[in-house]
């Protein structure tokens, strides 16, 4: 493995997100272990790892929702723990557990989110209408969120994160449960946003999706970064040829294939 190629990369235009030896423990369990990473402006950055790798914990720390045990985070040069309001005003977040009020309608949720982010009432309402149309929820905007399907809830949560046009967007498994057509439409808009300077920090455990849409990727395993860079850089770093997929890189980086034995009754 080429250590230099696996070192943290810097995006063009300076680092929008910087993690420096970031660590978070819960009792005896280390969820994030000395994570060091930079993400540049306008990147569509993929944060890839299996369940329990520490992706969600990292995003929560970056959004100021969890306090790091040690290490530093800088979002636009600011510490989200010391300057929470300034950081939160610039970011949007779609957490895995979906930050929605189930007893509000989809429309009410979007308007409320807009008002939370400082939009005036008329602008919030107009943008909510626009978002409902774009997300394919115009017929369901009057239903309570509790009556939505998982995909509809995801779309509503995405709308809440986008309504204030954030400069940095944290997406934690945003497409699980969303229909493929909607995913395609949302991806196109997100790519357009990155061309206009918005940075997207996209966390997922679905390698094919990350490989298709992200410009740079970090592979996280058991709380620490095992590889970071573009697909070509990582292939080169791990000595893999052109058709090698992100999954191949992941297996090489992590070095721990799933045990083939252990549940023989499954295939008996």
């Amino acid at each position, binding site marked *: 493995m080429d250590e230099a190629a696996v070192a943290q990369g810097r995006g063009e235009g300076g680092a929008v997100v910087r993690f420096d030896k970031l660590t978070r423990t819960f009792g005896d369990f280390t969820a994030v272990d000395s994570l060091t990473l930079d993400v540049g402006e306008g990147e569509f950055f993929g944060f890839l790892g299996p369940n329990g790798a520490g992706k969600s914990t990292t995003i929560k720390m970056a959004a*100021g929702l969890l306090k790091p045990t040690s290490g530093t985070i800088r979002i636009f040069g600011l510490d989200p*723990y010391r300057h929470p*309001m300034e950081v939160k005003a610039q970011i949007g977040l779609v957490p895995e557990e979906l930050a*929605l009020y189930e007893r*509000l309608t989809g429309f009410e949720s979007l308007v409320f989110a807009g008002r939370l982010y400082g939009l005036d*009432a008329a602008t919030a309402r107009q943008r909510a209408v626009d978002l409902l149309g774009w997300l394919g929820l115009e017929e369901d905007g009057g239903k*309570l969120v509790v009556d939505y399907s998982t995909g509809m809830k995801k779309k509503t949560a995405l709308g809440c994160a986008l309504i204030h046009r954030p400069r940095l967007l944290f997406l934690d498994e945003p497409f699980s449960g969303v229909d493929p057509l909607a995913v395609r439409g949302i991806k196109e808009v997100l790519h357009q946003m990155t061309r206009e300077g918005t940075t997207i920090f996209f966390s997922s455990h679905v390698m094919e999706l990350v490989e298709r849409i992200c410009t740079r990727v970090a592979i996280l395993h058991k709380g620490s970064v095992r590889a970071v860079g573009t697909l070509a850089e990582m292939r080169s770093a791990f000595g893999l040829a052109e058709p090698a997929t992100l999954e191949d890189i992941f297996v090489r980086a992590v070095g721990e294939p799933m045990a083939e034995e252990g549940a023989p009754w499954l295939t008996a």
Partner: protein
Amino acid sequence: MADGVMAGGRRRRLRVLLELQLRLQWRSARGRGAAEALGASVMLVVVGLLGVGAGFAGYLLTEAFAQDPAGPAPALWIGGAGLLALLLYAGLFGGGAGSGFDVSRLFHMPVAAGEMVLADAAARFLGPWSLPPAAFFGGSALACAWEGHPAFAALLPAALVLWLLQAHLVLAAGDLLLFNLRRSRRLMEAVGLLGTGLFVALLFFQNYLATRLVHGLAFGGAMRWLTHAWGALGPFLLLLPGLSAVSWVGAGRWAPLRLAAALAEAAGLLALGRLLLVRLMERGSAEGRRRTREGRREAERTSARPLERLAIWPFCVKDFRYLTRDPYLKTALMGILLYPFLWVLIATGPGFDARGALLHVGLPLVLLLSFANLSTNHLAVEREGLLLLIGSPAPRWRLLAGKNLLLMGLYLAVTAAVEGYFVWRGVKPGSAAADLVMAFSMGLIYFGLGNLLSLLMPMPVAPRGRRLVPQVSGAKMFLVIFAQFAMLGAVMAVDLPVILGRVAMLHVGSPLLAALALPAMLLYGALIYAVLLAAASRLMASREPAIYEALVRGSS
């Protein structure tokens, strides 16, 4: 074919369900180690004390009836009915006797609905909260044996088993009814009102009967009324669940019939529970289609109404929508709106000193106590929406003030209505305005302190679809309840200048004093609230990660 589906059968599935339910029944705390041990200890101490009390009550009540010509049976009737009422009161409205188990997590499993209901009832049967009723029956059996009714005493264990079975099946069916009500919002509103009415009536009878019996003057009249009512309705009442389980004991030739009725009721309750569970498993809600039409009209309006332009308005309206849409918050709201009036009826009833301190200083405190759960843990009620709140850059004082504004509006509306009633009854003409100002000041301080308590001791609420009962250790629950009462003391201490001013106005009665004192009282309350709000908003900014861990991570 998948393994295990048909193997093992019903008996094995029931055993597995029962083990799971028992584990949840006896697990008192979400914490580990010392917290769980402390919570379990507190719970066992409380249950033990209740058991001792119930045992004594059973003995004394049976002893009182032992020499009656009808024998000790009426003691069982009173005990059986009273214990069932308490169990339902705690289980459905207070949540103390109910389980925290979300049965919907088993819907995709190959488990029959009847098995789930039976396992639920059996687990409650073997849970810690069966100890007090068992102690009551034990005390009663001792008294029967001592007073020369050995045959009676020998039948009581069977009566206990039947009573516990009926009581827990009623509780299980009641729980499922609440689950079902969520799926039909109109029906839920109607039954929520009815449930609140029953709850309030129960409180009324508790307080009304207590004051009347203790006062003594109406004792003879009340007992005559009860005796007359029993004579007319007794044979029918003895067939009700809780009573039928015990009314066959010592019933002579009617014993087989009453026992058969009790067993039939238990079977009927099991069938009812099964039916409710099956209905719960069915999908679909007609309300969704109705909402779509309303929602579209709402979404077409993109201009903002004048009130919407206020920065604090979104927080108030969001909380108001939740209060009127969430089924359990709605029930709490109904209680807040109705409960104080019953205290008024009691306080202005005959034989009660209408000029007492209760009506001036005590009444605002009583009204504020009805807001305790909504105002001292208000961040937890946000549930997953809390992430949206604390992930936003909205000024924290605005967020907290929006919540307080809504509750303050409700509190003042209720207080003004109560004061208006006093004026109409001629209880305190002319002093209502001064009492309202004092109540306003107390309310501001109470809600200001409530913000701090919400931030310092946040408790996760029950998962969606359950009662609004925190899923925390018994120890923490007792601590929070103690803190809520301590807050009332703190309100009185901090608002002492206002209270003293009000007392001075009562004694001096000078219009000039009132003209000077009332604005000063208003200003004092507003200043204290501003200080408390500023402290809470600073605290919130630093406590948000801890609150997130306690409420969102801790409740998932």
